[in-house]
């Protein structure tokens, strides 16, 4: 249902990430957490950023919003948001954007809400941090934001402390706070991972609705391909700091081009093969600390050949699809 409903970006993209590189200069060497990531997002579009733990997907999110803590640093690349480049932007200007034009949702809603402040205090803070606005007007906005996230009796919920709410309710509050200033971009870092599947489905649906309605672009960082297939318009698969495949979500999932994407899809437990041994990708993701020059997936790839010892470039074998592989999968090999 997601395919085709995305606005066919007549406008300029909300966000354009160009060759973003975030390195951590540690004593052991340089950790290339994000190594040349590029993608663009149209208003109202949802991009699923997929990959296993440690592949750099969260670091990509933090790099965009400019919150990489030392020893990490965005060493090169550009993050074009509206008419400005967020890389190298003064901290004060970035701060004015955060929570206002760009906001973020985190994995654990228990941790991201301040435990000693009531929900209303926290929501009013989020509004008043960015505009001159009376308390009662901010409270009205907070009530509307909660109602939009499908929270009934928002009046009562506003007077609650975070510990009085269930996990799903807390994450709805966190998402409502992220959307309260009608941002242009929301970066969601595995926000439904800690929730059970039914709550997850509701929250996905509501977040998607909000994006469509407000024209908010969203980056949904996850390791769950099922989430991506039901939510995202496009998907970017990351591996060891690089995007290895990118395209429309439905197409990537139906016909993966990169062996890693195929491996990921293959390791999703499927209901029609009960009892069968779960497929997995052999080996471990290589460390991003001083990686070898060749394809990062080389050690785990069943299709590896001689040319794979040099880094493949991102190519466009099919219009709208990008893949970083010397030997992308062909039609017969994709399932």
């Amino acid at each position: 249902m997601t395919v085709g409903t995305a606005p066919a970006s007549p406008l300029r993209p909300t966000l354009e990430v160009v060759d973003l590189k975030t390195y951590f200069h540690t004593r052991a060497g340089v950790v290339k957490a994000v190594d040349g990531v590029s993608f663009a997002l149209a208003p109202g579009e949802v991009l699923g950023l997929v990959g296993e733990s440690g592949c750099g997907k969260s670091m990509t999110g933090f790099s965009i919003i400019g919150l990489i803590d030392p020893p990490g640093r965005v060493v090169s690349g550009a993050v074009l948001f509206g008419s400005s480049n967020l890389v190298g932007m003064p901290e004060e200007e970035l701060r004015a954007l955060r929570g206002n034009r760009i906001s973020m949702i985190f994995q654990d809603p228990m941790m991201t809400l301040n435990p000693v402040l009531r929900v209303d205090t926290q929501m009013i803070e989020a509004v008043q941090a960015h505009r001159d606005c009376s308390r009662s007007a901010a409270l009205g906005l907070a009530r509307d934001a909660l109602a939009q996230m499908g929270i009934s009796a928002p009046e009562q919920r506003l007077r609650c402390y975070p510990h009085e709410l269930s996990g799903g309710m807390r994450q709805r509050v966190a998402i409502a706070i992220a959307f309260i200033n009608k941002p242009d971009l929301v970066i969601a870092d595995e926000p439904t991972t800690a929730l059970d599947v039914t709550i997850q489905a509701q929250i996905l649906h509501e977040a998607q609705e909000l994006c469509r309605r407000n024209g908010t672009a969203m980056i949904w960082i996850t390791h769950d391909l099922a989430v991506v297939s039901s939510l995202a318009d496009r998907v970017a698969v990351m591996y060891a700091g690089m995007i290895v495949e990118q395209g429309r979500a439905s197409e990537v999932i139906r016909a993966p081009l990169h062996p890693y994407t195929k491996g990921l899809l293959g390791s999703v437990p499927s209901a029609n093969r009960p009892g069968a041994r779960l497929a997995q990708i052999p080996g471990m993701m290589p460390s991003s600390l001083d990686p070898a020059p060749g394809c990062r997936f080389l050690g785990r790839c069943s299709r590896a050949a001689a040319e794979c010892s040099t880094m493949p470039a991102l190519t466009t074998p099919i219009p709208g699809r990008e893949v970083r592989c010397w030997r992308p999968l062909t039609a017969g090999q994709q399932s």
Partner: protein
Amino acid sequence: MSVAETDANADAQRPSDMPVALAETPLRRFLSDYFASWIATLALALLLLIACLALLAPLLAPQNPYNLAEVDILDSRLPPGSMGMAGYRYWLGTDGAGRDLVSAILYGLRISLMVGAVSCLIATVIGATVGLTAAYAGGRTESLLMRLVDLQLSLPAILIALMLIAVLGKGVDKVIIALVTVQWAYYARTVRGTALAELNKEYVEAARCLGFSHPRIMFKQILPNCLPPLIVVATIQAAHAIALEATLSFLGVGLPRTEPSLGLLISNGFEYMLSGKYWISFIPGVVLLITVMAINLVGDQLRDVLNPRLKR
């Protein structure tokens, strides 16, 4: 998606009749935890009584000990229970100047508590700001501020206070300045420790992502989470401040003789101690002891109630 929508509807109906846990507010839980101990309850009641006595001293005291016209030198050093020349009984006796000890203690409590509370409040504000700034800024600022705290804490409190009073001179305000100087470092260290732990929590990261300014994150997000240990330290330090002020007054460098605090009353009677007129020092001393003990007991119970690790 239809499954999700029906679920959303079900979810939308459920919570309205689900009782929201309003009965169990943090304040109510805190109060019920606090009053679970009868000693702490008693201490709090005693403290409130002492505070009321101090506040209402001008109404309760039979005589105004500062008004020399009301004080009769002929009544000096009368033992507890004696009748005075003015026709009323001195229940706790009189001191060397003929002042009624009941009145003098009530007025003395007033000054002791006021000095303790004001210096504690100012020291809390300064200490919390310094500690929070140190934790939040980190790096060189933190090193500088915390070394200053270390320096402050490595010198004996009474020595610093004596030196300051020697430089500044006598007076209530001077004593308060001395007490604040001696005490702010405790608060700074406490708040920094708590704030460092809080800084690693994700809500601070989330606040940064919401674009909150640094002061906003420090004072509106982190500080409320640092309050429990701060309240405990403030209570204990208030008791210390009162005791320290009494010490300074006893040594004759604290408050002026015209505004006797408990320490000054003790010091006034000290010379008569060995001649059997014990009450002039002893009774103000007992009152000081009870006051400081009540505050400490309240502080202990606050520490137990506010410490999540001691939760039963």
